[in-house]
């Protein structure tokens, strides 16, 4: 019988890791103005959550968490595809992907 790995690492460690990673993602979203980096930051956030899903899956000894990660990845892929499509059309029109330049709509 395999010992639950969480007995060694501890679920809280995963949580802290996830939180930090998530926060780094958030930080990236706020910090950078290059849209593609912002996308990457969002990917980091999603990955962080995915990691936690797996950790929880182990914690509960339950497969559903991992299945969910699967969906989450699908979503991430779809988002990136659409996001990049939007990005490309923005780039075509604006010649830049600096999100701070997107200020036509305001007020």
């Amino acid at each position: 019988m395999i010992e639950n790995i969480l007995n060694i690492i501890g679920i809280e460690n995963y949580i802290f890791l996830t939180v930090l990673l998530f926060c780094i993602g958030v930080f990236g979203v706020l910090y950078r103005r290059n849209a593609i980096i912002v996308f990457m930051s969002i990917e980091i956030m999603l990955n962080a959550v995915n990691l936690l899903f797996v950790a929880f899956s182990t914690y509960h000894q339950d497969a559903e968490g991992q299945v969910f990660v699967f969906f989450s990845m699908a979503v991430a892929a779809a988002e990136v595809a659409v996001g990049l499509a939007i990005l490309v059309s923005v780039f075509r029109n604006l010649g830049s992907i600096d999100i701070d330049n997107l200020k036509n709509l305001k007020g």
Partner: protein
Amino acid sequence: MQVLITIVSLGVFCLLAEIFNLRKLLVPITVIGLLAVLGISLNLWSIDSSIDTNYLNMMATTKFSSAFSSLFIVLTIFILLLSDDFYKDIPTKFSDFIAIKIFLLAGAVAMVSFTNLAMFFLGIEILSISLYILAASRRLDIKSNEAGMKYFLMGSFASGIILFGICLVYGATGYFNLEEIYALSQGIGLPTWFPIGVTLIVIGMLFKIAAAPFHFWAPDVYEGSPALTTAIMSTLAKVVAMATLYKLLSGMTVALGYKVELLIVIISILSMTIGNIMALRQKNVKRMLAFSGISHAGFMLMALLTLSTAASTLLYYTTAYALAGIAAFAVIIMVTKNKENENIENFNGLGKTNPLMAAVLTASLLSMAGIPIFSGFFAKFMLFSDTVKAGFLIVVIAGVINSIISVGYYFKLILAMYTKESNEEKVSIPFAYTIVAIVAIVLNIVIGIYPSLLTDLLV
């Protein structure tokens, strides 16, 4: 589930139709299809709250889900009817647009009938991604691009938050199934992760319904998106998100704590106030309606204060709001079709050049403002009444004050229509716009006169 399958197959049919060059017949066929779906949905009425085991605990047909699904279907039918003319100048992409809208509906239906958070998450993502696409769909228009970009960035950020929330809920309970979660939430000993998770999901949903302080995206996106997309966002998407939020909260918690209620009160008041006050100074009608939508989100949030009993009130409010919104947007799209922007000046003299459309727009604005006999009045009143009963007088007073403010900007538009001189010729209106506008507003008035049509459904 049948509903979902039928909708999805309808969407796939749209994609195929392109191949067979059925573009002309596309809208009629899909509309007929959706009417059929509506029939199915209504037919499923009798099946209540019995989880559809055939579908593996993923979806359940309840009165709640059927009612809201039917509403979404009706709204989509309206949107589709408007699409025919709206996308006239880009025929090659026509079927894609229709398909996306139908898939969007599928996502919406999933969101109100899920029993598993996976379905919820996928549903909301389908809805969101469809909207990102639609928002950015006018690819040469820089505003549309910007709107799409903004919506996408913030939307996926919110998705991340929701996902985190789901994860924490899972971590606390070990289930994605709503029933199980609900059962567990009644007991004690759940880790704090659970409320944190629920909170994060709720925050994500608050973003979707554009409640303050998560509302900033809405005006920009509404303004930049093509008008029809704005119509979808402000009616369908908002209603879906609100219904889902209600379902989530009522499905995952037994009772809200005092603190949470206070929080809802604050957010509700904040949304109403910000929405209305900001709307006062807007020149762009879409933007104005975006802020108006924010304030309506605030109103709808009141329903969460009477979580256990508010389903029918919420249904009524969302229906009233969405129908009025559709009617208004039908007119707005028609008026601003060949204009550069949607500024209020474009509506000058509409009362003379096109009294019927002006009347419809007026009626829908009055409904949103909550003037009786339009259903908006009953919607607000029921909310107020329930909320007063629950003892949250302060929200109601804030709501009343906000209703007053809201009249200020709704009437700006009405004034423009009736007191300003038009500077252009009378233009012929495509039949579809007239039909949609009139049917929507008539439905609005009908449920205003017979509120029992809706209010008794979910008791």
